[in-house]
Structures are given as structure tokens and as C-alpha cells.
């Protein structure tokens, strides 16, 4: 007998797992399905940067709330996932970067981020490890960082406690809609049925939406990440550069994580394939230039994180047009920061509560579809 649920969430990253968690806490019988384990893709391998300096202006209120939720994880998630508050700095080494810094800080401030321009001297007080060559800096008190690799454990505990039925290592092959609900197909059979569907597949959302006959292009970014082995304390801030091409932080265990969205090779089919050595060198040079103390570090590991982006670079969160009971969540820049909040907003919507903030209607990205029978889609 196929199991039936009130809702099924496909994709167990932070977006999907948070939605599933709140739906279950809201009284629904919920299934969470993933082709792998919980938070083992972008949600478990991203840089863990909680910063408003790199958040898209339109998402700042969401990121601010998301950051609070991460810091408060022991209370609502049941486990400390390693989120720590830290002062955030964005710096400029050239006049062009200074102009960019001032422009961007103003735009983000207008969107509600408490970002202020500070003198280089003040920036060096905040971050004594900083290169003295900076010519301008912006400061944000509401930043921080988190060890992304712990999110899988934290969410798994919470989901199990909330009674969510977990279907891990279950690659979904398609979704049949009709009969007042959805049938999830995996391994050549119907895995389960549910009245409501949430697609939360990050860079795989384009394919997932295709299951429902919807064509929405989703761009896949292949971000390179670098972590050093443990090191004496060389920095205490979350540090970036005006152009957004660097993110740096040192965790409590002494390792320093270098990110900034420098691109490697990969795609949604193959995942992250490999780093591009020249991009690696560029990224690490920026890091060493910003924090000269990094010169004594050794690089321990390099990996890739797949990030999704829509045509207008804003998320899709909300009901899918024309398909009763189907929803989507994902493609948020800085989505890891905002994820715990965005998942809660979508869960509130599905539970019939008024979300605290507006969702991001996916209909804007979906051209009118030819009338097709969903059952006929392979």
C-alpha cells in the first residue's frame, strides 16, 4: 500500500528541510524525499557566510531574519549548527572598488541593512589582521558565519523529532499529478502520494519543474571553495571585498574558509567536477592580500558548491500557477542565510497562515504554458 501524506517536499536542502519541518510542526503528515542525504549538496558545502554585504538588496530583510534564526538554532532547530555572530567588513583596495563599495553600501542600507562606511583605521580596529593597504571600508554589525557541514545533522535530528518521514537516497524520477494530489515516482514505482507538493531542488529545480510541464530556466553557478588547515587566529571578522569576489572567515576550530564565487567546472548533471587552477590562484591571492597572515596557512581542501539563479536573480517561493497544491522554493542568492526564514514563510502559506513577509511569486518566471495534460508527461 502506497503511503499517503498531506505534503511531500522533494529536495532536502535547507529550503526544503525547513519547509518540511514547519509543515510537520503545523500538524501535517509530511514526507521529505532526496536523491541523497539531508543537506549534502549546496546546503552542506557552502561557505557559511552570514553577511549582508553580499546579500542582494531585495533580500536583505529575509537575510537579517535568517541570520537570527541560525544564531538561535539551538532553540528552534534543537542543535547548535555552529552559527556565530561576527563583525562584517567589506573593503576596497582601489578607487574603483571604493566607488562600488559606497554605491552598494548605500543601496543595501536603503533596503534595511545596518551598513555604515568606516575609515580604514576603524576597519583595522575591527579586524587587526587586515591589510593596511585598504582605502575604504564598510562595516555591518549583523554578520556572522556558520559551519555548513553541520546542517545535515542538525536538520536530521529536528526532522526525525517532528515526525517527518524521511526518504533519503531515493532519486525521484517524476511526479504524476491528478486525483487531487501527487504521486512521487522513484525506482520505477510509486514511492508515495501526497495532497500537496513542494519542489525544493536548488540547481535541479529546472528539471523538477519540468516534471510538471513547466519550463523555467535555472542557471547553475559552480562556486569554488577553499579551506585551510587549522591556523593560529589570523582574523575575527567576516570579510569581503566591494566587488563580492571574496568571502573570508576563520572558524572556532582555526580553519579559514576562502570563497567568493570564483567559478569551477560542473553542471547539474555531473555536479561539481573540478576547480580551475587559475581561478583558484586568483581567489586565494585576493584572500592573502586581504589577510596577509594567511601566508603561513596550508590549503587542506578545495571543493565546489552548486548555486542556482533565476533569470531575474530573485528566488521562486510560492504556489505554482495552474497546478493546485504544487509549490516551489529556491534559487535565492545567499539562500543559505535566508533559508530557515524562507522555508518558514512558505510553510505558513501552505498551512493557511499569513506569511510575515511576501513570497516570491514563481508565476513571473513562467511563460503561459500550452494546455497539456499533466498525465501525459513522461
Amino acid at each position: 500500500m502506497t503511503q499517503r501524506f498531506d505534503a511531500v517536499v522533494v529536495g532536502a536542502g535547507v529550503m526544503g528541510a525547513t519547509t518540511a519541518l514547519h509543515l510537520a510542526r503545523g500538524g501535517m503528515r509530511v514526507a521529505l524525499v532526496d536523491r541523497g542525504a539531508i543537506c549534502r549538496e549546496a546546503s552542506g558545502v557552502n561557505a557559511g557566510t552570514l553577511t549582508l554585504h553580499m546579500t542582494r538588496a531585495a533580500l536583505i530583510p529575509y537575510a537579517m531574519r535568517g541570520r537570527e534564526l541560525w544564531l538561535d538554532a539551538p532553540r528552534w532547530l534543537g542543535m547548535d549548527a555552529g552559527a556565530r555572530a561576527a563583525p562584517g567588513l567589506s573593503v576596497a583596495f582601489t578607487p574603483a572598488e571604493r566607488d562600488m563599495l559606497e554605491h552598494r553600501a548605500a543601496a543595501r542600507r536603503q533596503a534595511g541593512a545596518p551598513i555604515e562606511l568606516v575609515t580604514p583605521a576603524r576597519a583595522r580596529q575591527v579586524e587587526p589582521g587586515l591589510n593596511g593597504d585598504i582605502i575604504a571600508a564598510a562595516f555591518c554589525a549583523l554578520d556572522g558565519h556558520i559551519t555548513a557541514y553541520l546542517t545535515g545533522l542538525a536538520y536530521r535530528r529536528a526532522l526525525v523529532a517532528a515526525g517527518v518521514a524521511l526518504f533519503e537516497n531515493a532519486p525521484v524520477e517524476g511526479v504524476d499529478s491528478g486525483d487531487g494530489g501527487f504521486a512521487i515516482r522513484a525506482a520505477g514505482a510509486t514511492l508515495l502520494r501526497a495532497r500537496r507538493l513542494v519542489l525544493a531542488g536548488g540547481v535541479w529545480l529546472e528539471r523538477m519543474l519540468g516534471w510538471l510541464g513547466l519550463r523555467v530556466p535555472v542557471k547553475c553557478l559552480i562556486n569554488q571553495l577553499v579551506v585551510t588547515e587549522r591556523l593560529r587566529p589570523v582574523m575575527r571578522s567576516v570579510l569581503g571585498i566591494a566587488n563580492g569576489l571574496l568571502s573570508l572567515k576563520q572558524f572556532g576550530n582555526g580553519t579559514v574558509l576562502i570563497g567568493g564565487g570564483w567559478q569551477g567546472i560542473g553542471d547539474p548533471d555531473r555536479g561539481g567536477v573540478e576547480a580551475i587552477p587559475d581561478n583558484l590562484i586568483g581567489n586565494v591571492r585576493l584572500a592573502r592580500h586581504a589577510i596577509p597572515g594567511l601566508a603561513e596557512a596550508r590549503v587542506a581542501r578545495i571543493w565546489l558548491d552548486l548555486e542556482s539563479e533565476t533569470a531575474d536573480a530573485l528566488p521562486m517561493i510560492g504556489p505554482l500557477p495552474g497546478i493546485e497544491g504544487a509549490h516551489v522554493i529556491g534559487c535565492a542568492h545567499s539562500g543559505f542565510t535566508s533559508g530557515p526564514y524562507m522555508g518558514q514563510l512558505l510553510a505558513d502559506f501552505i498551512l493557511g497562515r499569513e506569511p510575515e513577509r511576501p513570497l516570491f511569486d514563481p508565476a513571473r518566471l513562467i511563460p503561459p504554458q500550452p494546455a497539456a495534460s499533466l498525465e501525459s508527461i513522461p
Partner: protein
Amino acid sequence: MSSSRALLVSFSFDDEPYEGSAGDSLAVALMLAGRRHLRDSSRQGAPRGAFCLMGSCQECVVWVDGERRPACQVPLRQGMVVRSGTIGTDTP
């Protein structure tokens, strides 16, 4: 037997003077000098020393003239300034 042609050089470990044979690796020189405890581990703070001697396990990592290197992969040189590879223990 091949002939012995060791040239004695001096070096320091955590400011203590030692002598060893140029041509040996730093790890071997330290072992022969009776210095086997090269660092403390980061989580338990437990003593560690050379283990695989092939550059794989990273247990013998020390600071050599300011650079972090596995002692088993570093040829001993005159005047080398070596420090324990201990980083300090993790903070939450």
C-alpha cells in the same frame, strides 16, 4: 655496506639546540636526537610525533623557518629553526 658520510649540522627545536646529520630528514634527525613529541593534537591536546614518515599522515607537521611542513619531508639543514606544530585547541 655503503660508507657513512654524514655531515653534522646544528638546528633548534623550540629554542633547544640539537645536532643531526645533513641528509637525514628533519623527522629522523629529531628521532635520533630523542625528540619524538613534535606537537599536540588540536581537539584532545594529545602528544603526537612522526608516524608514517612518507608525507601522508601529517602527524609530524612542524614549523620550519616559519613554514608549516611535515618534518619527514624536509631535509635537515644547518641552522634550521624548528618549532612545535601545535596550533592550540579549538574554541567553540
